[in-house]
């Protein structure tokens, strides 16, 4: 029982990341009809927004400490962050410590801008081209973005920890009456899950309760009619692309303390997120979220020792197995509209 609760919890944070990326993917597919293989790269760029801010906050000047020596025996150069000088040791250290949450503010405008530039500069030229062309160009774009990041940040992962207040883990088991240490869960992963829930809620509220959202939903259902009514739906869809980029970017920012980011992290999530979108139903927002959590939890269960003993290798194929079953039995996905991905 405790093992089951543990794996459900484990699935939640992974599911949160899948859901956030898949939400953006399906939003873009639903509005612009584009299959965006560069979406994983947006997640990765979001993560590097956090790294960049952390580096900016750690920007230092060098002082020479004569009393200590470096590896060559020369006087040691000591780095002193400007932030500490400007705000004093306590506030300065706290700002550096909280760089990841602060990066949310930094990432939103950056990601929206990147999203809009991507859409206006490249992707809009591919609206009327076959999906295969869109996949090729966006996949190519993803590789270019990845290489740019690698050029500036190197290939190794860059540790960017969560604020000290969130280190360690929460003994969930004790709260619900199990022995100590049976069900533990890191605080930051709880934060990640809550954050994802807030973002998902905000996106739904935006689409459901604002006029802008209403027009976008109308455009998703029948683009031509909305255009005939004299509404510039293209501009709204561009903004939606920026929004989807921001959602993926924020998912990346907050993911940084869970695993140190490297240039390749977007690709690791991209394929899984596509499976999530297909399982949830192409173009269906609730489908993407539900499938994200579902597959996250399933993946966690499949990596339990008892399950692997029974079905060796299941942990590596479970997600694709589900995708195959869904595509065979219900090609439109769990919550997809009738006709999408169906003959």
């Amino acid at each position, binding site marked *: 029982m405790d093992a089951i609760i543990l794996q459900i919890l484990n699935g939640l944070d992974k599911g949160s990341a899948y859901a956030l990326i898949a939400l953006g993917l399906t939003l873009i597919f639903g509005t612009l009809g584009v299959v965006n293989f560069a979406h994983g790269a947006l997640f990765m760029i979001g993560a590097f927004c956090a790294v960049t801010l952390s580096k900016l906050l750690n920007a230092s000047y060098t002082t020479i400490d004569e009393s200590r020596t470096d590896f060559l025996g020369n006087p040691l150069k000591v780095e002193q962050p400007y932030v500490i000088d400007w705000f004093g040791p306590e506030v300065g250290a706290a700002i550096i410590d909280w760089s990841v949450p602060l990066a949310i503010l930094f990432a939103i405008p950056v990601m929206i801008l990147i999203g809009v530039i991507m859409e206006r500069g490249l992707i809009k030229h591919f609206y009327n081209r076959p999906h295969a062309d869109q996949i090729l160009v966006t996949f190519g774009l993803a590789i270019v973005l990845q290489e740019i990041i690698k050029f500036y940040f190197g290939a190794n992962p860059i540790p960017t920890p969560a604020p000290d207040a969130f*280190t360690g883990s929460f003994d969930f088991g004790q709260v619900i009456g199990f022995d100590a240490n049976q069900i*533990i869960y*890191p605080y930051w992963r709880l934060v990640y899950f809550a954050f994802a829930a807030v973002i998902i809620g905000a996106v739904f509220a935006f689409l459901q309760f604002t006029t802008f959202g209403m027009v976008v939903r109308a455009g998703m259902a029948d683009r031509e009619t909305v255009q005939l009514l004299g509404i510039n739906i293209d501009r709204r869809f561009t903004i939606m692309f920026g929004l989807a980029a921001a959602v993926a970017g924020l998912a990346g920012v907050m993911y940084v*303390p869970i*695993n140190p980011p*490297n240039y390749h992290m977007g690709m*690791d999530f991209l394929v899984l997120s596509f499976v999530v979108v297909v399982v949830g139903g192409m173009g269906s927002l609730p489908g993407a979220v539900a499938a994200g959590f579902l597959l996250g939890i399933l993946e966690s269960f499949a990596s*339990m020792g008892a399950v692997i003993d029974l079905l060796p290798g299941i942990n590596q194929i479970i997600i694709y197995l589900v995708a195959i079953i869904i595509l065979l039995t219900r090609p439109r996905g769990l919550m997809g509209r009738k006709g999408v991905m169906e003959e």
Partner: protein
Amino acid sequence: MSKSHLTRRGLLKTSAIAGAGVAMPTIFTASSASAFTNEPTGGTVTLGFNVPQTGPYADEGADELRAYELAVEHLNGGGDGGMMNTFSSDALQGNGILGKKVEYVTGDTQTKSDAARASAKSMIEKDGAIMITGGSSSGVAVAVQALCQEAGVIFMSGLTHSNDTTGKDKRANGFRHFFNSYMSGAALAPVLEANYGSDRKAYHLTADYNWGYTTEEAIVSSTEAMGWETVNTVKTPLTQTDFSSYIAPVLQSGADVLVLNHYGGNMVNSLTNAVQFGLRDKMVNGKQFEIVVPLYSRLMARGAGENVKGIFGSTNWHWSLQDEGSKAFVKSFGEKYGFPPSQAAHTCYVQTLLYADAVERAGSFQPCAVVEALEDFEFDGLGNGPTLYRAEDHQCFKDVLVVKGKENPQSEFDLLEIVEKTPVDQVTYAPDHPQFAGGSLGTCNNGG
């Protein structure tokens, strides 16, 4: 006056015979002393540096390449000579190798066996490389070593830690300076016993590929020999990025030590996740929970940041060593590039010097002569103390460093501290040890 009857058939016959005649010398001299693959004829000799320039190990590959460039500079008489001044053999004079100026070409292994083989093949066939060296993965090392054996060139492996490189996949033309999984286990076990006691329950997470298996086997057998119990061994996919679902069940198993048989990105993520789960703050079976990382790489430990503090592992070499060889190498590398070299850079630099030295001593670039010069070669002054290149399996035997993540690092390079230098006798094994059984060196190949 003779009459010539030049017919089509006659011409074909004549040219076939002439063709065979032209081809004959190479067919018949392939095994002779004078002709072998890419025999250098001009005033230069070309070495092939096959390192990961793209992909997840690109930073380690870049450090290897820096070391190779430094080695070439020193061999050609440039710079301060580095470890050539401390090397116990004095065959190298700083005038290239056998008087020929050393040049090099590079290939990108991408840390993929097929890409690594393709780049090695191209360096041998197109660029005339006489020796191939480098790499940052055992899968690549084993694949390229087999290719070099077939092609008749020497392979001086870079960073490869799997037992198989000089175990079941060993080849006569291949040589490894780096240490291996068995040695890590043998060196770590006594230190673990001294620090954590002999009554421990270990849980292993193991990368699901060749290197992971041999490391798990080595650590399990050496820790069980001192009384530890192995609670569980779980294979994790190489592509795994989030290890939470593998780490969460560790505490439930009753284990009080977690062994992470992971390298590179896997190690960074699994260690980060384990620390996030607060494993190191827990008390299990009345003992403090501990984590062990059998193979440390300083470059990659950087990715795990603070999380490495206090965690034991092993390493082939570390820049803080105070022997003359290490100091000379750190000085020339540090002055050229501005930071200390990694263990990958060290092993690659040493391998290049060892190859050049063997050629000088053999008086020939011929692979079989080089093999003979390297076999059972004993040397010192290259950073690891007295070292033997054992003839039976072409593995170097030297002291092994047990290290620990440093509690109070002084700089970004100062991540590991040396806890113990395990003497070579303690990590030496018989060539037919079960962990290395199967496979044989075969005979050296000169190609041609």
